[in-house]
């Protein structure tokens, strides 16, 4: 059984006529110990989907359909207080840009200890600090720095602290929203390496959200590509990456938007146009407007996620890509 099983989830911003379905009937699963990547352009619904899992959506957003099964329990109809039990202890979140959200006047050690004290009542302050120090060591920061303040740390170090904090209550699933976006290439590599090794030592499952496909390619077991609130393609990293394999034209075009130093040096291709305006109704495939291989059917019929191989699914009428 998968650790997380999201089925047919829809999330709407606003209500009634002016409402926007940011996530529209999406499935997502994360297995035990699995690294799943969630990718797509800004506004594709990837963050909304991820934040719906522990229901950390903004007030004006609501889950309209679907179930979110975590260890067999449906989170979508749990109350706020029940969810508080789950958050951080079972599912923790590393928010986008959170490395700038550390409290400047509390020591790093105390900040890591805080969730432990909140979620595990009865833990003594000393015990919590001891654990905070262990966590710091685990993320590659010397325990002696637990009494430092965040401004003494660089961006990469602060992100390590955020990771330590997310691990404080030994969660089973960590949702990381663009955890390396603001960091340098070398620091990115360090953090990804760290996440990889932590997932092994702590037997973590990870949902990694990134706009950067090339980052996911190297880190994730499976990758789910979102487009305009829908799943465009999902499969193992081998399925999705590599121009021969990827089945969806959108994925192909995205991959061509990155320079690839292992291939011939040539100018990158972009994807002209913008994702469709979700507040308007649309027929057919949502990518059809920007797609270079679209046929008439693409503008009239919305494609279903079709099975390509065991774990590989693609929502394209021309499954297999450009024909």
């Amino acid at each position: 059984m998968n650790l997380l099983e999201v089925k047919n989830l829809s999330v709407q911003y606003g209500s009634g006529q002016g409402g926007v379905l940011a996530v529209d009937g999406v499935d997502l699963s994360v297995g035990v110990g699995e690294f799943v990547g969630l990718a797509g352009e800004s506004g594709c619904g990837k963050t909304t989907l991820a934040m719906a899992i522990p229901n950390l959506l903004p007030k004006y957003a609501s889950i309209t359909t679907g179930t979110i099964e975590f260890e067999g329990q449906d989170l979508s109809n749990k109350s706020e207080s029940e969810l508080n039990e789950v958050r951080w202890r079972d599912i923790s979140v590393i928010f986008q840009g959170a490395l700038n959200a550390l409290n400047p006047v509390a020591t790093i050690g105390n900040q890591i200890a805080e969730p432990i004290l909140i979620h595990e009542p009865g833990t003594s302050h000393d015990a919590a600090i001891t654990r905070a120090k262990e966590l710091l060591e685990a993320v590659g920061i010397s325990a002696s720095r637990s009494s430092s303040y965040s401004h003494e740390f660089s961006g990469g170090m602060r992100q390590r602290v955020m990771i330590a904090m997310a691990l404080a209550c030994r969660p089973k699933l960590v949702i990381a929203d663009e955890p390396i976006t603001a960091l340098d290439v070398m620091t990115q590599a360090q953090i990804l390496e760290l996440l990889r090794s932590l997932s092994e030592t702590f037997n973590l499952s990870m949902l990694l959200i990134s706009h950067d496909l090339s980052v996911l390619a190297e880190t994730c077991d499976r990758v789910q590509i979102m487009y305009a609130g829908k799943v465009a393609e999902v499969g193992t990293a081998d399925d999705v990456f590599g121009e021969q394999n990827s089945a969806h034209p959108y994925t192909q075009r995205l991959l061509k938007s990155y320079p690839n130093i292992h291939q011939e040096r040539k100018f990158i291709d972009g994807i002209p146009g913008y994702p469709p305006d979700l507040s308007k109704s649309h027929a057919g495939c949502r990518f059809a407007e920007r797609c270079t291989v679209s046929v008439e059917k693409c503008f009239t019929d919305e494609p279903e996620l079709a099975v390509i191989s065991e774990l590989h699914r693609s929502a394209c009428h021309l499954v297999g890509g450009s024909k």
Partner: protein
Amino acid sequence: MNSVAPILDVNNLTVEYQVKTKGKRGVRIARAVDGVSLKIRPGETLAVVGESGSGKTSIANAIMRLIEPTSGSIMLDGKELTKLAGKELRLARSKFQMIFQDPFESLDPRRTVLDTILESLVVAGIGIDDAEKRKLALEALEKVGLIPAENVGARYTYQLSGGQRQRVAIAAAMILKPHLLVADEPVSMLDVSLRAGILRLMRELSRELQIATLFITHDLSLAWMYADRIAVVYSGRIVEEGHPADLISFPQHPYTKALVSVIPVPEKNIARNRIILSGEIPDPLEIPSGCRFSPRCPKYRALGQPELCISSDPKLESIGDQFVACHFPEKKETK
């Protein structure tokens, strides 16, 4: 192509900051850029690649005269920019223009697109009357693909998307027909799918107008794709410089080698050895003696910590077509 004389010739550029520190020492000097020299020919693009804290942005800002260089010379089209001041500098500015990283910050949200372009013309004194200025501005908008220009021009910049704003910024810079364009991470804030469009536009316009481009980026693979030459900076110094293909396929400085090895690739299972350096770029207040990269250098350790690396600061020296600042550069295997 090397016969053409460089239009930008920077020599020994140094930028220092005064940093107030705790304790009795008071003010200390942080050296963000330390003796950087670079040349760019008309129509050519030099990418300066480095991590944050490497000094790449200080190099850009110093050349743009947005911060004061401490020493060194910046010659643009035979004119010494560091000697210009006041009105003279202001009038010379139209010849070196900059594209900023964040198009959401670099355009005034209370002004329309047309106003933004017109400002370039007004400040530089181009165009006889308002009608001509307007005509030129609309043409510039069309040229960067913002059509219909009348329609786009009437909008406030905050109503545009990031990609559209960056096009406005490009139009506002290019309308002045500068000799030098400094592009500071021009696409890093944009969605991946939009980057190609912006870069293509920059390339077309700079080729057409024979503009020299200084392309500042943290993304080595983007520099490889876009630039004619790449200079890798570390802790305020150029550590390696060369043609993109050579530099990527055969990096000679251990830092470049490590950077190349961690470039994310949109492919699974590429066989390679990733060299993940520990630690970070040194604090510009405490630059290590000798080779500033030595504390993090895998080669320094592999060679048994040679004395030379901590006693002597390596100079940027040419090895074939490449320039490397390392006592023990990688040697090309000759067959």
